[in-house]
């Protein structure tokens, strides 16, 4: 083949290679834009006076997306109203769930990964399968039971269903299995009991798995809507998701305030997720999809 033929062919291929990545990059940016646009619009609308939310939509300009007269007035109103209470409730419920839930899930995972006892396979299977029954599918009958226990409109009622999480148990157990047995055998020779081995060897070595499991527990509570709707209808125990849904159902709602509230509700989990993103991805990877 002569150089005269090869040269244009090569440059044509290079040109094609140049065009495809650009096209893919544009697609990736469009997907990202589509994903964040509603959030940006909501956050920007939270900084608008309530009367301006729908004012700059026609014709579409940059002021359709960004606030023309930005103000912090909505935030002041929110923090002096019932929304502050809902935010506090959500933070209390999520924090207690993560702390107690990690203890409950990791101790079960420890028994299933490290200890030897008869019927272990059966216990493991029953536990994971029953926790995999999605909570929402049995929320309605459970709320009847909880009302019978007098747990309606209590923090306990809100927290309890979030404590046991099959995915968290599964993930922690998987991680514990990777910790060499010799460590606990050596500790045992030194006189450490099972509780000590769990608390002083397994937990400190499992930070990434604990963060991953903690994220699962947190997201469950922050996302919850059906359960708080069923068990905590009183305004004093409203969580953020309920407070915002009520906002939207109100007649003559101030949309500026409502969007400021949605921004707060979205910001908390987003910051946590971005901060722990590495662990989050790792926790997804352990849920059994990896070959």
């Amino acid at each position, binding site marked *: 083949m002569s150089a005269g033929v090869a040269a244009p062919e090569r440059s044509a291929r290079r040109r094609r290679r140049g065009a495809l*990545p650009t096209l*893919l*990059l544009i697609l*990736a*940016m469009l997907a*990202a834009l589509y*994903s*964040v646009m*509603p*959030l940006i*619009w*909501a956050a920007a609308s939270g900084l608008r006076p309530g009367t301006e939310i729908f004012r700059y939509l*026609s014709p579409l300009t940059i002021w*359709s997306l960004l606030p023309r007269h930005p103000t912090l007035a909505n935030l002041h109103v929110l923090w002096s109203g019932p929304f502050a209470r809902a935010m506090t409730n959500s933070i209390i419920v999520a924090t207690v769930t993560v702390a107690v839930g990690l203890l409950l*899930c990791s*101790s*079960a995972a420890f028994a299933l990964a490290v200890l030897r006892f008869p019927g*272990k396979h059966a*216990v493991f299977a029953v*536990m994971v399968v029953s926790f*995999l*029954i*999605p*909570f*929402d*599918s*049995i929320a*309605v*009958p459970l709320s009847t*039971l909880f009302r019978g226990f007098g747990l309606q409109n209590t923090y306990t009622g809100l927290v*309890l269903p979030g404590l*046991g999480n099959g995915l968290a148990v*599964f993930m922690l157990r998987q991680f514990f299995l990777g910790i060499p047995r010799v460590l606990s*055998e050596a500790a*045992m020779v030194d006189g450490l009991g*099972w*509780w000590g081995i769990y608390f002083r060897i397994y937990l400190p070595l499992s930070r990434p798995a604990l963060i991953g499991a903690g994220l699962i527990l947190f997201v469950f509570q*922050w*996302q919850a*809507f*059906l359960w708080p*709707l069923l068990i905590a209808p009183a305004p004093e125990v409203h969580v953020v*998701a*309920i407070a*915002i*849904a009520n*906002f939207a*159902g109100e007649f003559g709602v101030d949309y500026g305030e409502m*969007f400021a509230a*949605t921004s707060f509700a*979205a910001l908390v*989990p*987003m910051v946590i997720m*971005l901060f722990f*993103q590495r662990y989050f991805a790792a926790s*997804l990877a352990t849920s*059994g*999809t*990896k*070959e």
Partner: protein
Amino acid sequence: MPDGVRRRPAGLTGRHREWLAAAGFLAPAVVAVLVLRLWPTLQAVMVAFEVGPGSLPSLANFRFLFADPEFTGSLATTALYSVLVNPIQIALALGLAVLLNQALPAVGLWRTLVLLPVAVPQAVSAVIWGVAMRPDGPLNAAFQALGLGAQPFLTSPRQALASIIVIVSWIGVGYWMTFLIAGLKDIPTQYYEAAAIDGAGAWQRFRLITLPLLRRPLTFVLVADTVANFLVFAPVEILTRGGPQGSTNLVMNEIYNRAFDQGDTAGAAAATTILVLVVVAVVSIQFRLMLAKDDFS
């Protein structure tokens, strides 16, 4: 042998102590499973079949339920919704996974932004989209600017279900994409290199290497996504309450209405029983997938 080492200092009492320790470590989780999952499930089944002292199980609630056009309508709506939403979400998630697994500039940033809606509570996303889809909202402003005319979206029986699908897909696709990206990363690059040497094009590489080797994560996503979509509730409750004309009355909304708006506890229990049965069937597939590569057996 690790067994010998373990047994020597402790002996038989040590083994019994280990059983006791296991019981202690497991007790809280076992109680949680019993009280929070199995008891309510059993309760729903017993109410549904009218099991009680001196009465035989009866199918009356189920007969009543299936004779009620509202319930059968909600089953049909849920079926239509599932048939549409699951393939759409999985195709989008797969496309995005392949796209955002390429060596593009700032690809980590695009990936994070696509995943961002997952972090937002569903109720919050529903509220935002509800306002965006209002007749005088920004979505219609954009439609009109493009010359497509204003759309009724959630207020029309013909567009409401499609609008719900758009909203839940915006929420969920990034999440399912993450599982598929993890799967793509596990495919050895040598396969692609070998295929490129053999002159395989991009489509052939995707069809003959990516798809077959992505089967496990894809199946997992299919199953988990199907379950998640059976349970969609917040967007429906907040935006349409099942309407207009029952066009978005998905099964969770039907159960909720039955239990609380109509006070039909028995009917709600029967509907819950059906839902749990379907979901458990799907979840046991999921469980087997999770265990397939497990070291337990």
